[in-house]
């Protein structure tokens, strides 16, 4: 039973579908140039859970829960649900932590960077240049033998269900409008598509991304490391369809200034994404891919996502995150610390395992 989404045209189809869903979510109420943003949405979930109290960004984003559950369902159906883990989990937790911080300095994960580009936000060019730089440095380490160690099949399949179940419970809390959750009344957290649309969009993306192995980091990494464009085709399709739909719908506004939920601090847009690129590439994939893998039962990816949640909480509790006005009070030092951590991990874990 061949996986059609693993072919060239399959991944192009998947990327196109994901792009259409992203624009549809923007149309139905998600923030501008933010049909999907794994970093922003995990940050919003952290806010909804009151892990931080930044009022404009508190909302349990159903997209994330949809993606992980959609991935889990299709993985189970295709026999690809394989609970596994044990590959340097604590290192991965903090890779997630710092990847989130880098993304929040730029104000977007790689998915959002491509959507911002498709919307005419030229600051995304700066961010993507940073991302590519971080990925490039990561590939130098990978070529030298960087390795976080082998993951093993989990002692019990039960382990693989925990993170999807955690997300499922959070989704239920949202569905029943649990009074202890926080819901932004203003700002990006208040901009969201109706729950059923967000959830459906997430489930569909979970399916397309799981089947096609869609990965916005691998897309760039594989060009550097093996001169392969397979994953890039998926990302290109995603970006191009989003761009086309934006044009048609009058949502393409080229420029650097006054872009929605963006800032023009070029240095930190660049460096924030250098950090994100480094951290994601050492962890083996972009945040979307980590969410999909967690849906497949990969507990290392699950731990990475928990690290991202904590990173988001700390970012907003300690003024690390950016805003449209610019970088946060401690955004610069946090980014440099993160780059230091990821490079240290890179050096220490190179040649340690053969």
């Amino acid at each position, binding site marked *: 039973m061949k996986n059609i989404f693993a072919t060239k045209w399959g991944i192009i189809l998947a990327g196109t579908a994901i792009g259409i869903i992203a624009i549809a979510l923007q149309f139905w109420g998600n923030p501008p140039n933010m049909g999907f943003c794994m970093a922003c949405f995990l940050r919003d979930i952290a806010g909804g859970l009151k892990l931080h109290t930044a009022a404009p960004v508190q909302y349990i984003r159903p997209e994330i829960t949809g993606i992980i559950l959609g991935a889990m369902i299709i993985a189970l159906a295709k026999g690809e649900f394989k609970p596994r883990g044990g590959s340097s989990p604590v290192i991965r937790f903090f890779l997630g932590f710092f990847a989130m911080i880098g993304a929040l300095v730029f104000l977007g994960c790689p998915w959002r960077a491509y959507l911002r580009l498709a919307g005419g936000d030229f600051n995304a060019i700066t961010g993507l240049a940073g991302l590519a730089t971080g990925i490039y440095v990561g590939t130098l380490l990978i070529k030298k033998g960087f390795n976080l160690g082998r993951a093993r099949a989990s002692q019990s399949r039960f382990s693989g269900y925990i993170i999807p179940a955690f997300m499922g419970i959070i989704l239920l809390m949202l569905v029943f409008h649990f009074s202890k959750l926080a819901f932004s009344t203003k700002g990006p957290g208040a901009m969201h598509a109706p729950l059923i649309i967000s959830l459906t969009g997430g489930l569909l993306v979970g399916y397309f991304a799981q089947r096609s192995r869609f990965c916005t980091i691998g897309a760039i990494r594989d060009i550097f490391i*093996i001169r392969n464009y397979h994953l890039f085709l998926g990302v290109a399709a995603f970006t191009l369809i989003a761009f086309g739909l934006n044009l048609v719908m009058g949502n393409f506004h080229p420029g650097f200034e006054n872009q929605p939920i963006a800032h023009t601090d070029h240095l930190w847009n660049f460096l924030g994404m250098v950090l994100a690129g480094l951290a994601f590439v050492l962890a083996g994939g972009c945040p979307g891919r980590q969410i999909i893998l967690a849906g497949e039962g990969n507990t290392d990816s699950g731990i990475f996502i928990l690290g991202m949640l904590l990173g988001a909480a700390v970012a907003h509790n300690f003024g690390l995150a950016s805003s449209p006005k610019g970088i946060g009070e401690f955004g610069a030092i946090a980014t440099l610390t993160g780059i230091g951590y990821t490079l240290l991990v890179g050096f220490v874990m190179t040649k340690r395992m053969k």
Partner: protein
Amino acid sequence: MEYIEVDARGLSCPIPVMKTTKVIKKEQGSFKVLIDDETSFENVMRTLENFKLEIEKTEEFEDEDYKVIYVIR
């Protein structure tokens, strides 16, 4: 028949492809790749196609849940 072993089980992307590519470029002779993840399997198969290598056979070890790709050179 002697096969150089590439054990890619449990390794994160892109290391299975890296290890396979290294053997293709730096070693002579036939080799076998051990894989326990479907995505890595697809990636390695794609790599072997790109290098136009001949796959002798693929074995599946159900209990331990991994596959082995045998490549003839």
